[in-house]
């Protein structure tokens, strides 16, 4: 039992830290700190910098151009990225599709798509959710009917994050209606420029536009774009879901959020004294800090087990729930900390064209609070996670 990093791990951390200090553009980290939305170009710029160093694909093996890092190294890298306020790596190509292609894709698919992901040639998005099928993916209704060398795809996806930027989408589609609902699902790669695809942005509660509805009307997809076998898509989707679960606790985000909260609470005055000296507010900060300290160690326990080869199980469900609770509580406290200046509508307050309303640090918290309500909804809602815990760990 030893809570400290090994010498090698410390050396690696220092290497990452030095790289970020030298190569992360200040313009990008400023945007991240202020909660401003990043443009597609911002993301591409940052991906290219990481790719040049060979560090874009932390969860890919070396043979495919990845880093080959173990779970602890990935944790260290993510931790340093968050501390440096680096933009997060857009997960759809790297973290999600990549592992699926490596395990289930054809040689052609691997040779074609994997380098394009690293090079930024293809921007991917994920077509899972549908209206009426949220946490219940098995009731999926988008269909793909084989006609010669093509699938004809019809249906609708929703909550498709950053689809407005995407070149490609990986989709779950129904290829068989008989049998158990999970059985007739296939995993298809679709060019977003195909005729018959319509993307409609969904404005979210904070005024941001990051998710979309995507309609498919008689979209023709070459059969070569099927991943693995027809009707086996559910298996690949589940495999992907376990990979999506890395860094599910969001310890780095929470730590950065806690620092932001404390910084604001030191600057805001209440009855003439820094808000952080108000005992009741200090206690709320203390509570979330104590929770975070424990959660960070739970996270390391899971990572350490993963590095030793154990598959992440229902423990990640526990991390998901606690992680979202901690982050949402930090968001709520930060919004409370800025007082009346939490009231301006985020898009007006954050918009860079006008002079800021109120202090600089007051621009982001309300939007972050509202936007991060999603944390407990997506990626398997917290209710779904509790059901997993009850079933898999408690065996109830």
């Amino acid at each position, binding site marked *: 039992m030893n809570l400290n990093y090994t010498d090698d791990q410390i050396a690696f951390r220092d290497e990452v830290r030095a790289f970020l200090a030298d190569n992360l553009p200040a313009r990008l980290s400023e945007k991240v700190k202020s909660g401003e939305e990043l443009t597609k170009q911002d993301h591409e710029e940052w991906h290219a910098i990481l790719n040049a160093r060979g560090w874009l694909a932390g969860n890919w093996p070396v043979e495919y151009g990845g880093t080959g890092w173990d779970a602890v190294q990935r944790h260290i890298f993510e931790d340093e990225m968050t501390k440096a306020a680096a933009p997060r790596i857009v997960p759809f190509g790297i973290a999600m599709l990549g592992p699926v292609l490596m395990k289930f894709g054809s040689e052609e698919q691997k040779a074609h798509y994997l380098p394009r992901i690293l090079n930024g040639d293809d921007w991917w998005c994920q077509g899972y959710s549908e209206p009426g099928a*949220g946490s219940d993916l098995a009731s999926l209704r988008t269909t793909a009917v084989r006609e010669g060398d093509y699938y004809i795809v019809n249906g609708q996806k929703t909550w498709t994050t950053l689809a407005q930027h995407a070149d490609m989408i990986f989709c779950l589609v129904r290829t068989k209606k008989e049998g158990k609902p999970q059985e007739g699902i296939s995993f298809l790669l679709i060019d977003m420029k195909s005729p018959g695809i319509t993307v409609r942005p969904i404005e979210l*509660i904070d005024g941001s536009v990051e998710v979309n509805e995507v309609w498919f009307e008689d979209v023709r997809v070459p059969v070569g774009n099927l991943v693995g076998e027809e009707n086996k898509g559910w298996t690949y989707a589940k495999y992907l879901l376990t990979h999506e679960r890395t860094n599910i606790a969001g310890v780095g985000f929470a730590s950065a959020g806690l620092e932001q909260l404390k910084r604001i609470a030191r600057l805001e005055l209440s009855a003439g004294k820094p808000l952080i000296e108000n005992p009741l507010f200090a206690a709320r900060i203390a509570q979330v800090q104590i929770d975070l300290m424990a959660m960070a160690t739970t996270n390391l326990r899971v990572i350490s087990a993963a590095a030793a080869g154990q598959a992440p199980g229902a423990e990640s469900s526990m991390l998901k729930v606690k992680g979202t609770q901690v982050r949402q509580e930090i968001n709520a406290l930060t919004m409370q900390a800025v007082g009346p200046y939490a*009231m*301006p*509508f985020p898009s007006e307050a954050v918009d860079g064209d006008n002079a800021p309303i109120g202090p600089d640090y007051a621009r982001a918290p*309300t939007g972050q609070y509202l936007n991060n309500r999603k944390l407990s909804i997506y990626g398997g809602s917290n209710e779904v996670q509790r059901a997993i815990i009850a079933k898999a760990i408690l065996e109830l």
Partner: protein
Amino acid sequence: MNFDLTDERQMLQDGLRRFLRDKYTPDLLKQIADSETGTSSDVWDGLADMGVIGALFTEDQGGFGGAGFDVALVAEEMGRVGATDPLIDTGILGGGLIAALGTDDQKAMIEDIIAGTRQLALAHGEPGSRYDLSRVGTTVADGKLTGRKAVVVNGGAADTLIVSARTFGDVADQEGISLYLVAADAPGLTRRSYALTGGGHAAEITLDDTPGTLLGTEGQAFDALPTAHARATCAISAEAVGLMDAIRELTVDYLKTRKQFGQPIGKFQALQHRMADVLIEIEQARSAVINLAGHLEAEPAVRDVHVAATKTLIGQVARLVAEESIQMHGGIGMTEEYGLAHLAKRLVMVDHRFGDTLYHMDRFIALAVA
């Protein structure tokens, strides 16, 4: 002891509820949200015609109500449809302070307010003053005001502003604060109006040697502020209960219709129990508003205990109701298009006016625990 409405109030409630139900269509809400001022003159005229603005004033003041239960009744109905009309700003804060402090000439303005032809705003808070009522740094010399006022709700649409300024004393002293009536188009006054997260608009206001007319006694205006804020707190708390009821209805309907794993999600016991807890807390909030409304005319020491208790509880329940309702809706609850977004945001933002849970918990401890 009696928790029934009087016949007059029952009539007012019925009429107002019907009026708002008819008026506040999704289209109107969107139209208001997209407007320059965050208000609708059509609705405002209707409210005035029905006597809703007048219900905020006593008969002595030229109105026909004015008690805590009148304020609560009107505000709760407004909340029920997520209305953003500035009743609190024009009627309770603006009109209330003029009624309390004004000369007979100044009080003539109340007739216009009740008739719906005048918009007011209280420009009191400043950058950094947070919720502290006595923190005023705006200066005054020879009746000319200089300073900055922050997040002045309805400040963009108001034709008359009530501006606080410091005649003497330190920045946090209660003594030395004066109030002035300032025309929105007075020289040296600039305002930047912007939309609020909870709907409606507010303005940042800069005063540079701007002329104003004294309202009340010079340097002695502070005492009127806690009373005006107590009434505004009662109103916004009642509005919050209206919002909670509307959100609860929306959420229960959704639980009954949305299906997952083959049945309405409202059949899932975990959600049932959580929704039951939400309901219990809404009833707590409703009772807290009754407590405040019933003590609004009590002596300040008693009244302020209820102000602090009620606003604390309202802030807590507001967060619970908003967060649980979004969570139970899932993704759809996150979209701006769906009706929940506006209601939930407006409800959450209640905690950022007239003191939040932290401010009022501290006050309650000082007033009622130790």
